């Protein structure tokens, strides 16, 4: 428990006067370790700790709480700011006839599962969604979309023999207009941000289709590479927001902070299970508490 560790670090501190630079440095060493253990990126932790230190020096020691609690309070509120502020981000999608949402990310992050979850969420908000399978590589990827679509009762557009992702998407957009689907959720293949050919596929999809939203789907247990992944996807494809998945596990999810810090876009949703209803809006304050442990 971070508060306990901080209280131990501050045991010798008197309860009067201001927080000195030494108090803060000691306390922040504990915070630094907690953030690194929570998978926040090394460089981002360094920057964050420096910012808190600058802000905390000279703060009056409050008499109602322990110095350890006070440092945690400062850190906690600063984390919330970094995660996007107190309120859950507002998700507003334009009505584009059809609106196009594209899901991208590393292999196994949860894209296909969250395509289905987003469809359920959108339907609950008066949209008429359809799933579009653009993963032509992974064995049975199209079947996975087809099965999920049937489970949740929405339509799906699946690859025809030899059809490429751009062709499938363009066909889906045409069909959307005739079938009255007002939002298409494009599920793409998992890929490494360093795979130039696969990243070029996404660049082409983005360029030709101009999706209304591109969401990077990230596994909450992602470690230090989250920064490289977020940065590269944002640089090459453009990211409008994140979906953080598998938060029903016990990963602290420090990658969330790294992504937000490096890309500057909001985490919009969190995945909290394998079923299509396991999608929640992102709450910065809950995430901050989770990261600090």
């Amino acid at each position: 428990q971070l508060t306990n560790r901080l209280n131990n670090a501050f045991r010798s501190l008197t309860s009067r006067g201001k927080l000195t630079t030494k108090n803060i440095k000691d306390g922040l060493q504990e915070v630094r370790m907690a953030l690194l253990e929570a998978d926040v990126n090394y460089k981002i932790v360094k920057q964050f700790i420096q910012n808190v230190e600058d802000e905390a020096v000279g703060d009056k020691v409050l008499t109602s709480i322990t110095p350890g609690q006070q440092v945690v309070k400062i850190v906690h509120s600063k984390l919330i700011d970094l995660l996007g502020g107190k309120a859950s981000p507002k998700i507003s999608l334009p009505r584009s006839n059809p609106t196009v949402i594209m899901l991208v990310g590393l292999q196994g992050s949860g894209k296909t599962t969250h395509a289905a979850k987003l469809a359920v969420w959108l339907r609950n908000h008066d949209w008429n969604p359809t799933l579009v399978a653009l993963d032509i590589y992974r064995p049975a990827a199209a079947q996975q979309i087809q099965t999920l679509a049937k489970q949740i009762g929405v339509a799906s557009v699946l690859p025809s023999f030899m059809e490429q992702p751009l062709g499938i998407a363009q066909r889906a957009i045409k069909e959307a207009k005739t079938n009255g689907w007002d939002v298409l959720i494009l599920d793409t293949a998992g890929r490494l941000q360093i795979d130039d050919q696969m990243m070029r596929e996404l660049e082409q999809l983005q360029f030709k289709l101009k999706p209304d939203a591109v969401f990077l789907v990230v596994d909450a247990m992602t470690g230090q590479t989250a920064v490289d992944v977020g940065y590269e996807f944002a640089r090459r494809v453009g990211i409008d927001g994140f979906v953080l998945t598998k938060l029903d596990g016990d990963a602290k999810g420090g990658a969330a902070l790294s992504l937000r810090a490096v890309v500057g876009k909001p985490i919009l949703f969190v995945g909290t299970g394998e079923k299509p209803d396991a999608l929640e809006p992102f709450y910065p304050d809950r995430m901050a508490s989770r990261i600090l442990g």
Partner: protein
Amino acid sequence: IPLSRKISRDDIEKLEEVLISADVGVETTMEIIKDLKSKLSKSELTGSDVLVLLESHLMGILGEESGIEVNDKPFVILIAGVNGSGKTTTVAKLAHYFKSRGKKIVLAAGDTFRAAAQDQLEIWAKRAGVDIVNSHSGADPASVIYDASQKAMVKNFDIMIADTAGRLHTKKNLMEELRKVHRVAGKAIEGSPHEVILVVDATTGQNGLAQAEIFGQAIPLTGIILAKLDSTAKGGIAVAIRRKLGIPIKFIGVGEKIDDLAPFVPKDYVKAMLE
């Protein structure tokens, strides 16, 4: 790190970034840094000295190369891990690996839960040219493993590789299901499962240690396969797992194709981590 000039305590601190960035974790990193600093206090070191010491410290943690020795028939390999870690693809890769070494293989499609999981492994089985035992969606995974075990014995297979559904170690009912699969495998074939592998995604951070810990409490893990090492991640959590739990890393996954499996070679892995 400047290789030729003398190294200071501050230089050693900089190594902390290399190790943490590789997902080795705070605890293991601090132990390594402490050890290097104590060596520095005993004699002067150059950058290349420190590099050699760091390599040998990591190699010391990782231990000898350890593979899968097929020393029984039918030899059963049980594959487990959290959702999306790379299990099903790893099962296919292992099938290809052993088939190319002349073994007769049958797969057990133990994921009876996730959409199109059985279809996915069926396609891989065809590509690998191996047999597969599957069931209907929603079937008891233990019954698939039981049927595959029977087939392996009756039809004289050399190896049976059992895929299981992804599961988070925090889900007690799913960990209990895994225990049951392990138990049923043991009842069906004496000594089975002979190899119990946890597939860990190399991009995983510190949670990988909790995964190995909790999965290891449910079933006796004999090895780790570190998948997706072709990513920018260094998979340093494998070092922490080896250090704290003693589970050896046996193979690495380095891509999405059926032959993208390689034996884990500590020397190569450490070199790649430190470059």
